[in-house]
């Protein structure tokens, strides 16, 4: 008697038990604690927070542990948790000019008020495997300086003062919310930026790279890249004043791109903007370049059909939870549609063979 070769409840339960067991691995090796992930795999935690669109390093560390280090799976866990949280309101715009800086560089000016701060960067390290890290060496504390409390103005504000930088629309109080309304096209810039900031880092990196190689070319300078802590506050109508409720680390990138001007506007510089949770400068720079590429239409630039300039293409495909889910769904059973295809192919072959036979008979 035929036994249905279909996964049952027991198969699923056993598979999950196996997963739990494999996640733990060799029991002689100590179990990973979340503090270790949060402190020592901080950039992975940052990426999970950025693409998960939820700022919580402890939850991101938990997600990474549960996902066995699979970043997209961890992002998915965070997103699924995030949906269950109520939305109380909207924060005040974050003042990145008042950021407590740990890193701040400009590629357009040798020096500027506030100075250049390299911070904890991989830049200029030689990528030689440090075999010493295979042990557990004591790492000496880095040299420290006095914390500066002076605000560090944005580099591009100096260009702004000269009128060389295109003015940005400050936007109104009603910010659209990608997570509360379906994405519809054409999408305004605030919505595009929301999609990009939680978009897949690899996808945005490739798109940004494609603009550098000529697909929608628009040469970008890194006007400023800054990483640090900012305060987040909200206005509570019940209290009648603003309260601070969080301090978060973010990465901000402003690119400077030439704009030739048009009939109505003088030549000036335009901006691409990237803002990402945590320390994630590759993503922030990529985002700035893609943001600028997506402004091609509103700036009246030539559209040469480059993927990075096409908002439907970019926004419909940048979310790795959507794309990985749909990609992997083809693992699910498709017996029924496949069976229908099978019958169709057999029938088409039968019909064609019959026609061929009829033609050769007629020829004889």
């Amino acid at each position, binding site marked *: 008697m035929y036994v249905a070769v*279909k996964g049952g409840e027991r198969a699923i339960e056993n598979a999950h038990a196996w997963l739990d067991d494999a996640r733990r691995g060799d029991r002689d090796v100590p179990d990973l604690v979340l503090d270790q992930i949060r402190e020592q795999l901080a950039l992975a935690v940052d990426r999970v927070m950025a693409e998960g669109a939820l700022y919580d390093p402890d939850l991101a560390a938990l997600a990474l542990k549960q996902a066995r280090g699979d970043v997209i799976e961890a992002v998915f866990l965070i997103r699924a948790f995030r949906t269950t949280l109520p939305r109380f309101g909207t924060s005040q715009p974050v003042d990145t000019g008042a950021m407590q800086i740990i890193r701040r560089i400009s590629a357009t000016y040798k020096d500027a008020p506030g100075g250049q701060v390299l911070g904890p960067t991989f830049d200029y390290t030689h990528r030689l495997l440090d075999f010493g890290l295979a042990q557990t060496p004591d790492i000496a504390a880095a040299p420290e300086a006095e914390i500066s409390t002076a605000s560090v103005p944005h580099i591009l504000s100096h260009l702004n003062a000269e009128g060389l930088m295109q003015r940005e629309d400050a936007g109104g109080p009603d910010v659209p919310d990608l997570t509360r309304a379906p994405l519809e096209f054409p999408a305004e810039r605030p919505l595009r930026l929301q999609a990009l900031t939680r978009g897949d880092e690899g996808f945005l990196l490739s798109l940004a790279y494609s603009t550098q190689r000529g697909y929608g070319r628009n040469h970008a300078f890194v006007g400023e890249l800054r990483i640090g802590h900012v305060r987040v506050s909200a206005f509570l109508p019940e209290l009648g004043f603003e309260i601070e409720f969080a301090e978060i680390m973010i990465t901000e990138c402003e690119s400077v791109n030439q704009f030739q001007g048009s009939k109505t506007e003088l030549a000036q510089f335009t901006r691409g903007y990237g803002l990402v949770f945590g320390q994630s400068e590759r993503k922030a720079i990529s985002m700035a370049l893609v943001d600028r590429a997506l402004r091609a239409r509103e700036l009246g630039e030539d559209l040469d059909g480059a993927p990075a300039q096409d908002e*439907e293409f970019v926004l419909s495909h940048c979310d790795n939870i959507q794309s990985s*889910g749909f990609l992997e769904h083809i693992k699910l059973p498709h017996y029924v549609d496949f069976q229908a295809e099978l019958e169709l192919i057999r029938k088409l072959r039968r019909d064609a063979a019959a026609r061929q036979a009829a033609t050769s008979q007629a020829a004889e």
Partner: protein
Amino acid sequence: MTDYNFAYLDEATKRMLRRAILKAVAIPGYQVPFSSREMPMPYGWGTGGVQVTAACLVPEDTLKVIDQGADDTTNAVSIRKFFARVAGVETTEATARASVIQTRHRIPETPLTEGQILVFQVPIPEPLRFLEPRETETRTMHALEDYGLMHVRLYEDIAKHGEIARAYAYPVRVEGRYIMDPSPIPKFDNPKLDNSPALQLFGAGRECRIYALPPYTRVESLDFEDYPFTASKAAGQVCAICGAEDSYLDEVITDDAGGRMFVCSDTDYCATRVAAQAEDAA
């Protein structure tokens, strides 16, 4: 499980979904954009259907979940367990007993009745998508009822293959107005969409679209006068388990020497027939 609201989603989200569903029922076949949420299962694995089911469920409901017509396929098991856990509703495998049925790729063989809701999981809700990738364009085409491209495509199939070479997700026209994707059901199931006494709801989570066929809606599979639509299945085969001649059959490979058998894809239909035969014999 008390950590989550009934049927997982919070009430505000369910209200948003119900508004979209009501609009979809009011304009049969029209794709209503809705603010799809991330669910604890991946996009592409039935999140649209799960959200629609969550919005429809009440504690008195009896839920059936099928995938490929079967209650025991892995994803059907997973979704059924999800609702048993977060909604605590009764579940069943019997089509006739269910008040809500969530399905992927099939319509049950047992005819549905008034008061039942059939929820389809939809991967790509736009029937014109593979003719025109841009949403801005396809929305305009629907608005203007500009379906020439689709008819040309079907005609090209006939010119090339002698018939419309579509085996599943065969496009339909709803009440003579919107062209609709019936989700990837085999075209064998298309006639069941027409004039069904049940409410049929379609949810596409990743694509943020809900659409509907209210009970007793006219649904025609696209065809030409001289090339009429036919609902096809495995030719000349009957179910090897229950002997059914009228059900959709899955082909199962039984050995490596070309042996194969055909069995009902609808496991409840098959099991019910086997039970009835056993009773008759006794």
